[in-house]
């Protein structure tokens, strides 16, 4: 692998396999995952996983949480580091655990390919089944309106555990698919692909160093925008703000030249 961005689809290459590849090749950089309801970033330093984050959580659990995502894209941006690592556990252990969890997800995905699926009680006769307290708790929330993800949030349990309960109830003929969450079917806010910011950070890092990503995030906030719904027409304003961080006139011109090409090709 060279310095080019590694990109692909999670339906073709599983996350756990990507983690293993990056670990084996001792890569440093950021693995960005984009999926229907959000995104996640996993940071590597010489092949070791040192940090992971989503919009609302960070640390090792992010990895286990996103393992279940089968539809989405990934991209690896080399030489991006993180200021405050949150993961100390040896990467080999994380990957071993991830593989174990991934097998569970594999089974779950056969029944729940998308967490936005909505289930309802069946009208037929279910098989005889015994349920523990957690399973009852999940069952009483299944109402034909809330998605699997919604219910996981309501019962405040791990998404995988909740999905496994759904699978058990489904296999017992107690529940059936009612459809997809209406809320989730709403059109996504159109904006710049968040990968673009990783590319900008990567290019800026060549000039200002490893704080580039933080500078980009701050500049996005200064513009009153969100990375996940950033309007394309504001990209030049962002580059303009970032340009102020570059003192060397030649490096500034080179940076702006690359940014112009980036904007042109979006």
């Amino acid at each position, binding site marked *: 692998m060279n310095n080019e961005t590694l990109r692909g689809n999670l339906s073709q290459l599983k996350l756990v396999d990507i983690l293993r590849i990056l670990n084996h090749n001792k890569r440093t950089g950021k693995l960005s995952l984009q999926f229907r309801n959000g995104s996640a970033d996993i940071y590597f330093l010489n092949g070791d996983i040192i940090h992971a984050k989503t919009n609302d959580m960070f640390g090792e659990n992010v990895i286990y949480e996103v393992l279940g995502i089968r539809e989405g894209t990934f991209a690896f941006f080399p030489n991006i580091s993180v200021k405050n690592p949150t993961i100390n556990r040896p990467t080999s252990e994380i990957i071993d655990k991830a593989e174990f969890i991934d097998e569970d997800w594999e089974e779950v995905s056969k029944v729940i390919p998308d967490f936005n699926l909505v289930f309802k009680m069946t009208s037929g006769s279910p098989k005889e089944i015994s349920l523990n307290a957690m399973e009852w708790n999940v069952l009483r929330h299944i109402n034909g309106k809330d998605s699997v993800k919604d219910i996981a949030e309501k019962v405040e349990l791990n998404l995988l555990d909740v999905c496994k309960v759904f699978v058990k109830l489904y296999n017992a003929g107690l529940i059936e698919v009612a459809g997809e969450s209406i809320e989730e079917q709403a059109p996504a806010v159109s904006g710049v692909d968040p990968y673009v910011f990783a590319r900008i950070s990567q290019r800026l890092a060549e000039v200002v160093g490893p704080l580039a990503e933080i500078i980009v995030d701050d500049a996005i906030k200064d513009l009153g925008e969100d990375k996940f719904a950033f309007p394309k*027409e504001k990209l*030049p*304003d962002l580059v303009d703000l970032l340009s102020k961080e570059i003192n060397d006139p030649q490096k500034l011109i080179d940076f*702006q*030249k690359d940014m*112009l090409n980036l904007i042109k090709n979006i």
Partner: protein
Amino acid sequence: MDKLYENLIKEVNEVIGVVSSYLISSRGEIIYPKSVSDFSYLTKESFVYIVKALGIFDLIGENVLELEADFHDGKLYIINNLGLKVPTSLGVEKVFLVVVGGVNLSKSHLKMALNVSIANLVSNKKYKKMGDPIPISFSSNLSPGKLSGDEVEYVKRIRELAQK
């Protein structure tokens, strides 16, 4: 050299919201692009008016560097501080840039495109070898021979005001 100037115009025209752009001499002559086929947004005469306006600003002591004006459904930007010189029939002349754009024209994008294109242009050996531009001021376009009857009166009043 033509290619470098044409490239500058091309880069500016690729900016978000830009409709067309022109490098204009202080006499109001469109120097670049060499072939202007579409004047639907701005007529050749418009540029002469722009130069006369700049001449008036010179006259009253306000050397305009950048000017933004509402125009049809968009904006008109006159950028007079590029410091660009261009070989013309008179020798070497200073030029300014007129950009016609929609309301969505991104000034940051325009600034960036200009930075990059001008840096590319001025680093060229032929450009560096070019001599100093001939001194032509915008206000030299305000001589009675170049103005209509009404304009002569108008400029006369401005001169009087400027002298006060």
